């Protein structure tokens, strides 16, 4: 089983990676000025006894390696500690917000692919045409626009001026339309460029010329040959984007007041909520790694050359 072998080989690397990531994050937070103490005390006068109790409870006076060990031994047993600010297990804080982020990410990636692939193919299919130039310029602009700027424009146009869509809230599908568009715009541009380049590349290959010469219709050639072969790079990009959506939709979540993982991270960093930041960073790392692995495995399914290469 090629898949199984690749997967197990990777697993070791994954464990090392996550460990490194956790040490780095923990160290950074532990060394930084400030600390969770203030979040625990609130913004008011406090008594020395209270402060001493907090320092003891959260092991704030122990050396860094000891504190890290407390965290790690807990984490290995599945206990990622309690959020300092929310006073709940980190996992349930994250669990509550996860659906918001996954809904947004899923919605955005579907939009990205649904718009990006056809637009990229259309551009690649007629290189140099008006469509190509228009699409290419469109991607340039949407890539260059600051992400919060897009959110701003969407909110003002559809939320305030036209009042078509609800923008505040997170409990109905309609709440996710604008955030998903804001998120997908820049990403669709990446997919368009990738698809277009892949299509151009594949279009120049002998087998396409050959198929065309055999009299197969242009559509058929593109549909059954080119798309399939252009799929690899496009899929890679799509996977990376999906991972990015799951970990880094910070601006969009903030802009639309969505209680997702991105806005949670900003809040946790500001409160020095170490267990929460730690878990979020690890989750982010795990998602990126998992997506990368998934893409690699899919490569083998789609492109036999890779499979043989890997087996060899």
């Amino acid at each position, binding site marked *: 089983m090629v898949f199984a072998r690749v997967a197990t080989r990777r697993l070791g690397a994954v464990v090392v990676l996550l460990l490194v990531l956790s040490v780095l994050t923990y160290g950074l937070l532990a060394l930084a000025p*400030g600390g969770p103490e203030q979040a625990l005390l609130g913004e008011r006068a406090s008594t020395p006894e209270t402060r001493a109790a907090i320092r003891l409870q959260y092991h704030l006076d122990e050396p860094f390696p000891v504190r890290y060990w407390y965290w790690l031994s807990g984490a290995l047993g599945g206990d990622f500690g309690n959020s300092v600010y*929310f*006073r709940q297990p980190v996992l349930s804080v994250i669990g509550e917000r996860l659906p918001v982020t996954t809904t947004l990410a899923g919605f955005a990636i579907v939009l990205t692919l649904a718009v990006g692939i056809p637009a990229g193919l259309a551009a690649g299919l007629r290189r140099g045409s008006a469509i190509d130039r228009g699409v290419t310029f469109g991607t340039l602009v949407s890539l260059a626009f600051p992400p919060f700027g897009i959110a*701003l424009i969407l909110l003002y146009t559809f939320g305030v001026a036209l009042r078509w869509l609800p923008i505040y809230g997170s409990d109905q599908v309609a709440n996710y339309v604008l955030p998903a568009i804001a998120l997908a715009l820049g990403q669709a541009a990446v997919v368009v460029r990738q698809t277009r380049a892949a299509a151009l590349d594949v279009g120049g290959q002998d087998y396409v010329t050959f198929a065309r010469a055999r009299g197969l219709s242009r559509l058929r050639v593109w549909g059954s040959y080119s798309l399939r072969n252009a799929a690899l790079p496009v899929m890679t990009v799509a996977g990376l984007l999906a991972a990015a959506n799951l970990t880094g939709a*910070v601006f969009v979540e*903030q802009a639309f*007041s969505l209680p997702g993982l991105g806005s949670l991270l900003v809040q946790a*960093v500001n*409160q020095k909520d170490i267990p929460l930041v730690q878990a979020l960073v690890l989750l982010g790392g795990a998602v990126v790694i998992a997506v990368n692995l998934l893409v690699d495995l899919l490569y083998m399914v789609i492109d036999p050359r890779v499979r043989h290469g890997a087996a060899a």
Partner: protein
Amino acid sequence: MPPKLRKLTAGALAGALLLTGCATNGGAKSGSGGSAASLTLVTPSPPTVLDIAHGFNTPSTLVQFAILDTPVTLGEDGSIKPSLAESFTEPKPGTYVFKLRPGVRFSDGTPVTAEDVAYSLERHLDPELASQAASTVITVKKVEVTAPDQVTVELKSPNPTFLANAALIWQIVPKKLAEANPQTLGTPEVPTLGTGPYKVTAFTVDGVTLERNDQYWGPKATLDRVKVTAIGEPEAMRLAVSSGSVDGTTLIPPQEARKWEGMKGVDVRFYPGNAIAFLSLNVKDKYLRDVHVRRAIAHAVNRTAVQQLAVGGKAAPARTILPQPQLKALYGEQYEQVVAGLPDYPYDLAAAKAELAKSAYPDGFTLTVPYASDDKRVDALQAVAADLGKIGIKVDLKPLPPDAARAQRMRHQDLTMGLSELSYGTPDPGEVLPDLLGEVAAQPQGFNFAQYTTPEMEAKINTMLGLTGKARQDAVTEIITLAAEEQPYIPLYYAQYGVALNEKFVHSIGPWTVNAIGAIKVR
């Protein structure tokens, strides 16, 4: 109420984000529940913990006071009134006896015992609990059940603010529940249990949902259901209220106040807060120790501009460090004459330059002023910096991560100049003056950010605390006159707090309102 640094920001989320426009379509989601007996309130940051021991912040206390009772509460004029206690007496100074109301039950039907009541105060004394309210009960010596319906509290020394503090932090919770969940009471895992007019039915990432508590001992709440939810972006919050997708807020973001007026179908009102905003000048600082420098700064700052930028003009100019409601409570209507008699430093660049010329640094100097990167009053701080630039004092604003900035300030580390706003819950000046000018508060974790403390001032304050009537008035006048001469604090403004409510509702929220949700009714 113990003073707190008013957090004008949307909690940790502040400072982040963009945008000003998120509204829901008013038509698509008509009102937040259809029926008028249901109310949705929005807060700038979410309620975190429904227990004052760990959730002593405005959005959380807003919810706490709707579900939890205190033995005593504040009347509309700030006076202490019995609540869950039927009556209370002070047999000797510093000892209070509370007689409990009979037949009161928690919302699950369990009767309230004197043990529950005593424990609810006692728990804040336990360092293990690390209660955020601990410093307010520091003078409590003993809490005892002295009869099945009677609790006696003995203080270490008489304290004029104990009852007012008790009205806020002595929230009655079941002893058994609180003992079993010391750290998690009031979180979504263990939503608390109270005797108040409402009870919690849901506590999720979307907010807190309350329903009428039919076990309530007092007049039944008029609203069936109340939802409290957060919108971090101030403009989104405003649009949500103006479009009717939420019913209102009791916490209009001060910087945005000007945008809130004139909304159709929404009643917007401002009331004077029991608060004071000031610039603190650390008198131990190399430059600021010179009284002429401090007076020069007082002359150089354009307070009207600062007020405009910090609270959108929704404020009254302040000339002394006591909040307006406290001045009124102490001196009556003649308080204005007292204030007018204090040394004053009107906005006047020529006078500022003249004062600076008298100091040891006539050519000015550079001052580094740290601030939290999410501080919404940073515009006002910039205006102060530019004002001081005009008389040769260069101000370098230094952004710090929010938690680090606050921790550093409470540790009194690198204190120079700072813009703060303190808000109080009691009409008595017995908290503000020791807080700003006292020796204890000059220690780390105190609010004396100017580090101004002298044996003379300390003696004056201690004497004042024991006085009453006219003698007290005179003692306070002496203290605030000295403070005005020395200018460790430059009083800036008295902020007003804003409430916006859909016209379907009416409210009677004022400076002394404890239970704001309870003060809202269907029109």
